[in-house]
């Protein structure tokens, strides 16, 4: 993404090298296919956020510019004891009038605290006078809802939050609640799989792409460049071979957890990165269980693209086959978040598949009969529980952790904004424009120096 943005922003020629530890580009955007039947499913980022109800949406524009088609996704109702609780009236019938009324009150408070524009701007300053940027969401939730309402809200947002309410701030917690309201944002996915955005971007960038190169360490050189040590993760002759690369600029586009695995040169560089990790490392976790069934047996009960289950402390159940109307088989995907994802992450795949099947309500008890294949994808510490950092700092400081001492080391990540794919684009654009400006200045200085000689 950064390479693509840089290509659009830079006015002078440059050489770009991409080092990727795995054998594929895309990170958390992953659209694999089943073995028994070649239907695709989303194993990572399941959807994109559409901010057009409030303002411009550069990511959606980019996706459409790349020639990709999108499909709106609706859902979010609670599936409880075989009944889809899609409206307040159903909540009232099932959980009682006090829960329904409490939810309305909570909803009003949440919307009073964050308008769609404030949600869109994602500016921590809006909180001033209403709540502290360091207040935990659990405390605010506890003050503004009864235990039953709190439990309902937690179930509804747990999988999106990917953490527990006591591990995140008020702003991020509220954002994850308010995102269910179509006046704030909507959801969509890319027809044919979200990973297409990665392949389309890769086709358009001019860069030397080195797959299977894990970055081990970063050091400075006497000339001011940055030296990167990497190790081959591939098989064959090059396996585990170490290589050294030297760059004028280095952009680390990694989850905050992955930064920990890199050794930075002791001194100012390591100290700056340690401070950055301390501020931004609030690990959150996802676990995805996706099952292929010989038929779609749930549409009567689950007509939407996704719903919420009470199982696993609140998880999201995706009808993955809704992404592809031509699918002959059915696909259901469970998205577990936070503590539950972490706790279940160590279990073997078979056990997780059994647990997923057991979490289905009575009306879908036949699931086991139709099961063809199951896949599990673990995303431990891959997302941020408190994006933007605690306490929040300026965008410059987020992206340039070592400041003026090492200005050529830059960071890109969703955790620097709002833990979304839109956040990745914002971050990538910020750094790309910065780099492009630097490159332009350097080119101008060279021309002036040449002319002076």
């Amino acid at each position: 993404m950064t390479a693509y943005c840089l290509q659009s922003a830079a006015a002078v020629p440059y050489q770009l090298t991409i080092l990727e530890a795995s054998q594929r580009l895309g990170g958390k955007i992953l659209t694999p296919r089943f073995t028994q039947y070649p239907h695709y499913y989303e194993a990572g980022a399941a959807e994109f956020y559409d901010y057009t109800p409030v303002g411009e949406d550069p990511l959606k524009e980019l996706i459409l510019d790349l020639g990709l088609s999108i499909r709106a996704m609706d859902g979010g109702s609670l599936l409880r004891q075989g009944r889809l609780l899609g409206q307040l009236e159903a909540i009232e019938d099932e959980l009682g009038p006090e829960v329904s009324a409490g939810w309305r009150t909570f909803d009003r408070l949440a919307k009073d605290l964050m308008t769609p524009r404030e949600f869109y701007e994602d500016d921590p300053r809006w909180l001033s006078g209403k709540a502290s940027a360091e207040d935990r969401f659990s405390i605010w939730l506890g003050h503004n809802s009864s235990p039953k309402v709190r439990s309902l809200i937690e179930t509804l947002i747990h999988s999106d939050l990917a953490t527990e309410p006591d591990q995140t701030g008020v702003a991020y917690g509220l954002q994850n609640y308010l995102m269910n309201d179509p006046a704030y944002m909507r959801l969509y996915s890319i027809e044919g799989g979200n990973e297409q955005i990665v392949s389309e971007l890769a086709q358009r960038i001019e860069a030397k792409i080195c797959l299977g190169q894990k970055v081990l360490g970063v050091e400075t050189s006497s000339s001011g460049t940055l030296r990167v040590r990497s190790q081959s993760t591939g098989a064959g002759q090059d396996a585990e071979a170490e290589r050294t690369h030297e760059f004028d600029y280095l952009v680390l586009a990694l989850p905050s957890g992955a930064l920990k695995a890199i050794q930075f040169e002791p001194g100012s560089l390591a100290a700056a990165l340690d401070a950055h990790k301390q501020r931004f490392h609030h690990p959150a976790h996802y676990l995805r269980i996706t099952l292929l069934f010989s038929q779609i047996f749930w549409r009567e009960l689950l007509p939407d693209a996704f719903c919420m289950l009470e199982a696993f402390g609140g998880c999201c159940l995706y009808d993955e086959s809704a992404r592809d109307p031509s699918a002959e088989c059915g696909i259901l995907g469970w998205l577990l978040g936070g503590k539950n994802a972490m706790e279940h992450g160590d279990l073997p795949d078979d056990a997780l598949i059994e647990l997923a099947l057991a979490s289905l309500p009575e009306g879908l008890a036949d699931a086991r009969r139709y099961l063809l294949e199951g896949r599990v994808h673990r995303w431990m510490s891959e997302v941020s529980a408190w994006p933007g950092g605690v306490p929040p700092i300026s965008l410059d400081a987020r992206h340039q952790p070592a400041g003026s001492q090492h200005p050529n080391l830059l960071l890109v990540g969703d955790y620097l904004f709002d833990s979304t794919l839109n956040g990745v684009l914002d971050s990538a654009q910020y750094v790309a424009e910065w780099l492009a400006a630097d490159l332009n200045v350097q080119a101008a200085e060279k021309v002036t120096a040449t002319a002076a000689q």
Partner: protein
Amino acid sequence: MNIPMTNDRKLLELPPGTTLSEYCWNAAFVSGGKGLARLSPQREAAIQCLPAVALADEPLVPTVDLQLLVLPTDDEPTAELLSGIQAWTEQSSDPLERRCGLLQLQGCRIFWGPGRAALIAAPRRLDSARVALLEAIGYESRLRALENWLESGWEQLQSDLEPAFEFSERQLRRRTDLRQRYQDVLGKRAELAQLTPRLHFPPIYPPTLASQIGERVRERTRLVERAEFASQQLEVYERVYEQAGQRRNEFLLQRSSNQLEWIIILLLLAQIVLVEMLGGQGVN
């Protein structure tokens, strides 16, 4: 109007408390009604069985837009009742439009067709569901009326294409008609402008039964897309009548300009003749 219910034409027994109401939206819109949901029915009566001959055969107002049957029940409706209600709903005033949509939501069943709708719900859900249904069907009805108006106007529009290109003395006789049609088009544009924001109203969160009924009926009847098409068609009408008006003005301007020129020419001729005559008589 005859209302055959079931195949064997038996009377269909309805749950206690069932009512049949007649609504007419167009009048309310024209007279500046604040919202369809606030409309009171033109006539409402409790009925025990269908066909409800008294109500259905003799509507009080000549143009009833909707007959709404409301059945309060906590019990699961029987298959016979459902098929009977569906048959009644499909039996709209227009024999070519015998179609019926069905919406099932939160234990509430809604059948709707072009001129009739039926709502089966638990008594405690009836009020909100009825208001939402009336509002959504009201929008649909308004839009359909506009579409019908547009559809019926194409032939007339064809004959009005000529004055939109070139105006002649012969067409001057039609200018009152053309002006009236242009005013009608602007009136329809104003109606659509009033209606469109209501169709684009975003879904409500947390969703309620009423909000979802509204959203789903709007979605199922493709109101947003239809409003866009209607807007495009209205644009064609506007262009034709605007151009016709422009051509008419140009024609009238040209005509008066020509007349003025002829007057000047005649005056000049008269002057020349007068000068010649006076000169011939030796007047200095």
